[in-house]
């Protein structure tokens, strides 16, 4: 029995409010106290007004935003989505590319073979290139050696020099020998070629290494 000396605590009042709102009955002693105690009754009334006000405000706001038309549109949208949701998903192929189906490995195998053939071709090409390059290098060296053995021999007028040996131009190096003369004559031959004819005036103004070396002698 709740006497008037012990007023209902606020927490119990909230309980009462939610119990009543859910449609259930209050405990008889509590209901009796609320009916008899003016102070508790007033507090309960105030609490009920506050909570009901909150609820009414929220309902009004929600109803203003979600009008019957909007609710109807939402129901239709849900129905459409459910219809799509129950269908199996379909994979759309990327434009311009064939779709590789799982379980069918032919395209992938073919791609691998092409890649392997391309790699093998590359290696073979590199090997052949290296081999032929080394052969050409050997040939050039042999020709250069024969040119050194015959210092007086001049190459044919139209012949292209195949190998140029470096010549020391300054410092206390050894005196120029027959190979230097061969080098100079190679230069002359190169200068006489049609594509360098335009440079001849400049060449005439430039002191020749041969002349300088002759002067130094």
């Amino acid at each position, binding site marked *: 029995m709740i006497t008037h000396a012990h007023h209902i605590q606020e927490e119990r009042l909230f309980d009462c409010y939610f119990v009543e709102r859910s449609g259930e009955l209050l405990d008889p002693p509590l209901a009796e106290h609320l009916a008899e105690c003016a102070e508790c009754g007033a507090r309960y009334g105030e609490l009920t007004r506050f909570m009901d006000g909150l609820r009414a405000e929220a*309902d009004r706001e929600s109803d203003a935003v979600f009008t019957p038309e909007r609710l109807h549109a*939402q129901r239709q949208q849900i129905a459409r989505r459910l219809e799509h949701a129950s269908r199996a998903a379909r994979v759309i192929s990327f434009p311009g590319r064939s779709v590789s189906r799982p379980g069918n490995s032919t395209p992938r195998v073919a791609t691998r073979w092409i890649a392997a053939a391309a790699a093998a071709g590359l290696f073979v090409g590199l090997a052949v290139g290296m081999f032929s390059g080394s052969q050409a290098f050997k040939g050039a060296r042999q020709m250069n050696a024969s040119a050194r053995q015959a210092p007086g021999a001049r190459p044919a007028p139209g012949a292209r020099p195949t190998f140029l040996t470096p010549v020391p131009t300054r410092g206390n190096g050894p005196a120029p020998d027959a190979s230097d003369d061969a080098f100079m004559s190679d230069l002359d031959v190169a200068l006489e070629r049609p594509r360098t004819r335009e440079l001849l005036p400049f060449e005439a103004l430039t002191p020749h290494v041969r002349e300088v070396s002759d002067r130094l002698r």
Partner: protein
Amino acid sequence: MRKAAVASPTGASAPPARDARGRRPVPAPLSEDSRLAIEIRGLVERVDLDDARERFAALVASHQRRALRIAYQYLRDAADADEAVQDAFVKVFTHITSYREAWPFEVWFTRILINGCLDRRKMRARRDRWFVPADETTGADELRASIAGSPDANPEARLLARERLARMTAAIDRLEGRQRTVFMLCHYGDCTPREVSAMTGLNESTVRVHLFRAARKLRGLLGGQP
């Protein structure tokens, strides 16, 4: 801030929450919606999807308004709430085979809805961290503001109504995550503390404590006036 922990949406096999004394609640008789949900589940299992969709439309119609009210109070954005409710209904239908009679349908559905709303709030918080929020006055907000009071009310009354709404929203936003969820579900979602206990996995007495604290805090923040 801690977020309210709501049990997994499809975790229908989880046992119902115990009551305040730790006892299992006596299973209540099935509600009309729960029976309908079981019927839909049977139809889906028999791949009779057209009938299932038709029956499901009745469930949507009976829960739509309440779901929107909860989602809107939670998200405070009409478009977000609209999408959250749609997603929840679609999810319920696609997972209907995992529905068990241990839960009333409305509890199961509300749990899915609240989880969706929580996800959206998290997403929004992440988005707001990176993007400057747009002008807060959206079309829906303008509409809401314009008709918050009586449509025939004078401008002063409408202004007061707008201020009251803003104050209420701010007060609810200041509630701690779990308190807010419990308050929303009880007060706006028409759920009993026992149902909220089943949805959130919290003890029923804990739900009552959260509810009381939330209401007391709101009264304090709003000065006793809604």
